[in-house]
């Protein structure tokens, strides 16, 4: 019986799809259609629109849920990642049963059940300079829900090249940013893109990512929902979208700070202006200057961690957790590292941080100061990797 029941359940969904009709569609969207600013015209515009969500994570999940529910007719989802347990606190589109499965596929599955009237395309691949233009070209509005600068600059440059509106969102700890780039506002001002704010990407270590800095689960929920809201406003032409404006939201004090942006004359020279120039860009390299030759693996680290001649240094900021045990180490946060390199006397130094990125930056700085006179190493994968590995031994 349980097997039969499950089979029956699986067949429910295609049956549902066959049942869709004008009437059920009207009922589905009735509560927004009765808004006089929105109306049936607004609903038709949504159904005819094509929106691409890049990154089906903390920002992408709520954006996808609200856009699917609202009846955006065609939605694309780009993500090459698998659902992991540490995603679930901020990505409630997925369930515990989805762990280990493709995010793009699982998101498509859930969203199709939420709204079978719309068409969803899952791109279970990483956005690169080779596939980005072909994917982005098919959509009207692009939502950036990624979690790294390499992707953000890649998406920005592709949107400028293809003249696509980009709805940007990003979070850090308790704060989030939202903006609309590459779109004409009603005053006719020149469209602004991300490089007008931050012309070149930060180097590794200059800015922490989510894994290192932490993020309150509900914050990307708020920011991703704001991205969905801005997208709906753009498509339906209602309200005042954040074109050429950057909004910052603070989840701790509910502070909202909005600034107006301006296109810079110098930005054009930083952008690839042909498909060939775009495809030749190396975004990963632009966003990372650190040299991986300093890296050592967990086994090598374990061999040397109790050697009294080796100085182990934690370069995380003083409030960061977890504190590892089982070996002695000194703390020199990356924010004050350069000023304190002279205090490091040992000939052999192993640096670590949360995920192994900032320690690589510190290793490069040490090398810049001491050159070959010191043996400088960085723990690959960071202390989180070492702790995970130790706990499974």
């Amino acid at each position, binding site marked *: 019986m349980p097997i039969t029941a499950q089979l029956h359940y699986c067949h429910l969904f295609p049956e549902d799809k066959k049942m869709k009709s004008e009437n059920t569609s009207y009922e589905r969207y009735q509560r927004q259609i009765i808004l006089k600013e929105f109306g049936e015209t607004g609903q038709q515009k949504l159904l005819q629109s094509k929106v691409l969500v890049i990154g089906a994570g903390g920002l992408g999940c709520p954006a996808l849920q609200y856009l699917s529910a609202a009846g955006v007719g065609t939605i694309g989802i780009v993500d090459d990642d698998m659902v992991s347990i540490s995603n679930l606190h901020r990505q409630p589109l997925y369930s515990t049963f989805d762990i280990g499965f493709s995010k793009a596929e699982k998101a498509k599955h859930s969203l199709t059940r939420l709204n079978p009237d719309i068409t969803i395309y899952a791109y279970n691949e990483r956005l690169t300079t080779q596939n980005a233009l072909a994917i982005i070209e098919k959509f009207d509005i692009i939502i950036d829900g990624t*979690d790294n600068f390499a992707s953000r600059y890649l998406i920005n440059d592709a949107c400028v090249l293809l003249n696509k509106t980009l709805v940007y969102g990003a979070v*850090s700890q308790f*704060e989030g940013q939202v903006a609309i780039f590459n779109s004409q506002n009603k005053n006719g001002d020149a469209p602004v893109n991300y490089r007008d704010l931050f012309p070149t990407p930060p180097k590794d270590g*200059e800015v922490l990512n989510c894994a290192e800095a932490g993020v309150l689960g509900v914050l990307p929920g708020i920011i991703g929902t704001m991205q969905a809201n801005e997208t709906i406003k753009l498509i339906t032409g209602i309200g005042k979208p954040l074109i050429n404006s950057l909004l*910052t939201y603070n989840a701790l004090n509910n502070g909202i700070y909005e600034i107006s942006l301006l296109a810079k004359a110098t930005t054009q020279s930083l952008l690839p202006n042909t498909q060939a120039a775009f495809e030749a860009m190396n975004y990963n390299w632009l966003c990372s200057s650190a040299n991986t030759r300093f890296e050592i693996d967990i086994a090598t680290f374990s061999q040397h961690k109790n050697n009294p001649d080796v100085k182990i240094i934690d370069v995380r900021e003083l409030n960061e957790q977890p504190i590892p045990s089982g070996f002695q180490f000194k703390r020199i946060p990356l*924010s004050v590292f350069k000023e304190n390199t002279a205090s490091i006397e040992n000939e052999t130094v192993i640096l670590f941080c949360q995920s192994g990125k900032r320690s690589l930056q510190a290793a490069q700085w040490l090398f810049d100061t001491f050159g070959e006179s010191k043996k400088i190493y960085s723990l690959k994968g960071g202390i989180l990797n070492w702790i995970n590995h130790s706990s499974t031994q």
Partner: protein
Amino acid sequence: MKINILFFGQLVDITGTDKILVENMNDTDSLVNALHETYPVLTQSKYLISVDKKIIEINTLLADNCTVALLPPFSGG
């Protein structure tokens, strides 16, 4: 002449506060120099500057009681 300064994101970790008040700063360049002297780690940080909620590109004169904000890029999602 009083200038309000707001810090966002991880700049707060460097300054230890999201808001300060400074006096007698004529323009944004001299303000940035003074901030870099007080908070040396700021020199290693990326941020954009707005004066009274408008992004600035070049050195900008400051008026009494204006608000200058320093906003860093966020990458998380």
